[in-house]
């Protein structure tokens, strides 16, 4: 169960990392907000993807 949650959060985090610059480019996010969102999503990716990988 935890493994599935980790995989799902990791995938969402990585997609957010891709969506954040697109939103900034479109003018929907300010530069600082984009950078913070990108950093937070990156952290989310590393925590959950590492947890997923270590449970393999």
């Amino acid at each position: 169960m935890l493994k599935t949650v980790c995989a799902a959060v990791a995938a969402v985090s990585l997609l957010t990392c891709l969506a954040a610059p697109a939103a900034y480019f479109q003018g929907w996010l300010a530069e600082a907000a984009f950078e913070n969102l990108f950093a937070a999503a990156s952290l989310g990716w590393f925590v959950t993807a590492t947890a997923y990988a270590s449970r393999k």
Partner: protein
Amino acid sequence: MGEIMPVKIAEVASRMDKLYEFDREPVTEDKLQSGRRFAGLFAGEHVAATEFVIGAFFVLHGVTARDLILGLLVGNLLAVLSWTFICAPIAVQTRLTLYWYLQKIAGPGLTFLYNIANAFLYCILAGAMVSVASTAVGLGFGIETPALTDVYPSSIGWVVTTFSIGVAFTILAILGFEKLSRFAGVCSPWIFVVFIAGAVATLPKLGVHPNLDNFWEVMTTKVWNGVPTEGQERFGLWHIAFFAWFANLAMHVGLSDMALFRYARSWKYGLYSAFGMYPGHMLAWLCSGIMVAAIGREMNPGLMAYTAVGVAGVFGVLLAGWTTANPTLYRVGLALQVITPGWPRWKITLAAGMVTAVLACFPVFFMKLLDYVAIYGLVLMPIGAVVFAEHWIFPRLGLPRYRAEEGKLLLNWQALAVWVGTLAVCRFLPLHLFYLWLPGWFLAVAAYTLLVKLTAKEARYA
């Protein structure tokens, strides 16, 4: 005295054999891997720290957008075809690594020399990765990145930062290669995203409209505008095509990826290398080109990524440097283990890491990365040509194969002569460094075939 040298080489060769014992036997049917695994491997392996530098250098070398895109399409296609038609078929037929196949052909003595050459070249490559990571860390401490033309360290700050990073990477490599490489597997999709995110986030800074109506105009006037930075040679389509082709020359034409393809079900799996060349190299190089244009074409990967995506970008460059330097340091340690008998792995990795850390302080390896990549491939290419000739041409001409193995030779002197001779001829060919390897390869194949044909006749009459 004359006896000492061969005996020593034989001892070293025997130690080397023990080291590589685990992959001595040809891969069995049950160990073959799926195509999906190959696609994943290639996609993950070909987005490294050096991609931040290579794509940026294309901009500094004043390539036009048209030449860049066409050059990358053609060059990466040629690289994929080299994996598919040169490397994969030999690997699938022999199911051996280059190390063991070269033993049969050229003898343990030459394999030893090849290993040492490879280790030294790997040290320089790892050093370049450390330098790239250093630009990211240096940003936080206000350390100035060396100039494009710098050969020697430009400041104490640069030396301290770079050497410390080299030491840190070495300690991490000593602490546990396997666990760290598992973590590196987690890093690679994210690093790929950093490239794409960096390029997309840079577009507004370059003045691209959200509806993309001026995208091509901006790309051709502000990024790949055909104007080289002062002191840089102007690159055209063929420079780019050849660079994309030879960027992994040691792996495909040089055959070191036999280690990978011996697990393939078919030689057609070579086509999976496209996952590393197009979404990997091509996309990453285009993205780093866009990012460098936004910082006034300054060769500073750390600043490039920071300007594009903020602090996360700095970590991206640092992690990209580390994840690629880590396996490189491991390979250097493995190659050097043969000349340091009785040394534990940590000691060898420490020694290799220290050499790498010192080399990393010299910005020439990072600032001349494109030339270094060309030299790296060129130096190892003749060995691939020798193996190619022996595998494909000798059976058709009825020439004896595996002379080193059959004759229990320590060293196949014809192969060594071709290796050294090809490099000597290439040194004087009136061609650009990027183009040298191609005539060199044909020359090596022809020279080795001819040399063996002549000496085989001699042997028959003797």
